[in-house]
């Protein structure tokens, strides 16, 4: 009995981590058709910003997490204006190459500052005792945080001015501009939001993983598979894909190893994209 509960709780945590590390990528790809190859480095910056702030004693974890997201948003402004905007209207491959180059630079800067291994931070203390097992409160909190973040994003896109203009610009940028929408500004906000979400994901991850300059690269592959499998409805599609892929990967790894879990994730994603080329939400009429 307690084994089953622990397996489920652990799967929920994996799903939450997959969702939190994918949302930023999903927003930027879903609304701007840009594959941000530097997404993993934004995760990494969010994680390092959090560990640095917490270890210096400057602020508690929750405040450091929010500051890390804000810091990534600021970097996102610079990146959008300098690298993304000039490539507007160019092929997908151009932005892919530009952001890939950027990710290499960001990685190297992190190595120069932090070295290849660095001390981490502890998760907030507290354990839930379940028979023979104990589960940390922090890993139980992650699914709740993931759901709240997704819900807030849904509200942002459904009921704010920015949300409406961003959805319109994503569907027909030319028509939106003819109706008075400043598409360039809307795209800046969207890219910055994606970077902030990546920073938030990395920050929330920082107490439970080994933070290193390469930490983003170990998550970006799964994040890509999740976004592609999710399909065009970039919020609910990504949520569904996270649940499916994260659940499969976690259950497999609990009964074998992490490597088999990741293999299972990639296999399920590959089969799904084969069967549903437009992703899980390919035939849904919704955009979010």
């Amino acid at each position, binding site marked *: 009995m307690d084994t089953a509960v622990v397996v489920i709780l652990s799967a929920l945590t994996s799903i939450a981590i997959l969702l939190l590390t994918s949302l930023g990528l999903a927003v930027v790809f879903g609304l701007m058709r840009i594959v941000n190859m530097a997404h993993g480095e934004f995760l990494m910056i969010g994680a390092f910003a959090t560990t640095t702030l917490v270890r210096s004693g400057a602020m508690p974890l929750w405040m450091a997490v929010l500051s890390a997201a804000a810091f990534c948003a600021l970097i996102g402004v610079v990146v959008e204006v300098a690298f993304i905007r000039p490539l507007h209207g160019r092929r997908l491959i151009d932005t892919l190459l530009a952001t890939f180059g950027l990710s290499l630079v960001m990685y190297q800067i992190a190595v120069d500052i932090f070295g290849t291994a660095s001390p981490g931070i502890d998760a907030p203390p507290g354990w839930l005792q379940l028979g023979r097992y104990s589960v940390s409160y922090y890993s139980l909190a992650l699914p709740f945080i993931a759901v709240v973040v997704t819900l807030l994003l849904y509200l942002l896109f459904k009921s704010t*001015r920015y949300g409406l*203009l961003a959805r319109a610009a994503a569907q*027909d940028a030319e*028509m939106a*501009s*003819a*109706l*008075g929408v400043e*598409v360039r500004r809307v795209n800046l906000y969207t890219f910055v939001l994606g970077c902030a979400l990546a920073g938030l994901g990395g920050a929330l991850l920082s107490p439970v993983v080994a933070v290193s300059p390469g930490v983003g690269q170990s998550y970006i592959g799964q994040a890509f598979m999740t976004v592609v499998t999710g399909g065009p409805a970039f919020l609910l599609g990504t949520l569904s894909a996270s649940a499916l892929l994260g659940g499969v990967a976690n259950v497999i790894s609990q009964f074998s190893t992490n490597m088999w879990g990741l293999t299972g994730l990639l296999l399920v994603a590959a089969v799904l994209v084969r069967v549903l080329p437009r992703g899980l939400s390919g035939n849904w*009429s919704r955009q979010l």
Partner: protein
Amino acid sequence: MRMFERSTWGANVLLEVTDLHAGYSAGVVLSGLNLAIESQCIVAVVGRNGVGKTTFIKTLMGLIAPRRGSIVFDGRNVAGMSPAARARIGMAYVPQGRRIFPKLTALENLLVGVKAANLPPRAIEPVLEQFPRLIPKLNNLGASLSGGEQQLLALARALVLQPRVLLLDEPSEGIQPSMLDEIQQVLLQAQQRQKLSVLLVEQNLEFAAELANTVHVMDSGRISRQVEPAVLLGSTLIPEFLGVTEV
């Protein structure tokens, strides 16, 4: 039914296009186009397929950059302005094929321009009164509306911005006749109540003739001549305007 006599239009020009050259990278489509639109006047531009009517209307809205020439709207040269800036000063666009946002509801389609202009959502109410057919469909997705409903929505979406000139590209295309009357009524009402000018690009000569105060014929990227609207209904000239004789 015509609400105004043609001869009563004053000489105050709202939109003046001079020596306009524009085109896609492949080649020039507009070459030295001149046209003036007076305020509160409906002007139709007719011509064969491929003479550059859509390019003309997109250049007016700023979706294609002109290579040469000026577009003066309300005393300002707008030729270098972005489409969004043109929308803000009173130019509105209803494109060919309507281009309704398919995954936004009808209401959201109407609110895009309203929110972009920071107007309150109730700004759509006076326009909705003119489109009673849209009211029960407001929560339907754009993609689920019929062609005629989409055309009405595209018109309403432009009119909520209280424009001074409406650029209309082939509004009659693929629309059933009963809906065409409705569209005509709405445009004539807006002309009177909102002091709206309309530039109408049309293949449907009957529709254009019933609506327009003046008609211009477009040929090889420029306006070749002006004709009386009634002339469009004379069958002998139709081949010239539509090119049905060309194989």
